[in-house]
């Protein structure tokens, strides 16, 4: 069974999903890959947009999400922090 993720892990997963798709992804793909309900995903996406970690891009009438420089920095910081605290067993 999958372990319950905390808020920060969900945010990390969403940004990672977008980043791994060459920095641009459709909302349906995020929904599928981040394993969230539609309502929850919208809440998280709005929060990430508000924090400027991702941006909304309209291309040929389709809505995409893209990771910003701040988003990439967050991802890198998160990976470092995780490694640091795991090395202390926390």
């Amino acid at each position: 069974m999958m372990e319950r993720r905390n808020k920060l892990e969900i945010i990390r997963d969403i940004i990672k999903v977008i980043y791994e798709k060459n920095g641009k992804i459709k909302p349906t793909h995020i929904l599928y890959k981040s394993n969230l309900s539609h309502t929850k995903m919208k809440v998280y996406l709005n929060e990430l947009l508000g924090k400027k970690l991702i941006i909304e891009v309209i291309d040929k009438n389709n809505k995409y999400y893209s990771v910003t420089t701040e988003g990439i920095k967050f991802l890198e910081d998160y990976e470092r922090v995780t490694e640091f605290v795991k090395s202390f067993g926390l």
Partner: protein
Amino acid sequence: MFSPAWFFGYDTTFNIISMFIALFIGIYSLKTYKLTKLKTHKYLSIAFFLIAISFFVLTTANLAIYYTLLKQTIHVKQFVLLVDLLKASLIGYIVITLIAYLIITALALKITERKTLLLIFLITLISLIPATNRFFSFHLIALVILGVFATPFFYRNMIEYTKLPSILVFLSFLFLTLSHVFLLFMGINSLYYVIGTGMQVISYLMLAIQLIAVYFKK
């Protein structure tokens, strides 16, 4: 106090190095807390800040001794004041270091109950009061806290996580534990003080390498 004459200054340098490493780890742990808002990260940062403070107190006391000893003449009043300052500093160093070790151990053992924590703190600190040789008692308590609880936890974490930073954290706490074994006997032979102090700085240098390995990871 326990240092051989030729080691004067080296021990203070080692303590200053350890102080800065503890300070940087405290700052980085605080950064992780700001990102994750997890209390365990906040307590880790408090523990390392306390270690940095304890080294600052010890270094200040050591420097006060060295500079006074360098003077040609010392007034009796000055000498008495110095002894009082030294006693207060050493007790401060002992108490602050033990609190920091206990916080790290409480994090490792996942003790979250405040009353339990307070009980452990009080028992540890009260056990120091009747001691005739506080330094011996301090190193013995530190040895038990680190050797019986913290280091085995970091060993298990290293086996589970098997990455360079976790190996360095385990080795660091192993060296720190061993340093207390040697420092326990520094009253018998000053060479034990040299070995213990050396091992202590090596343990903090390993934590510095761990921090660098994490920070500059691509």
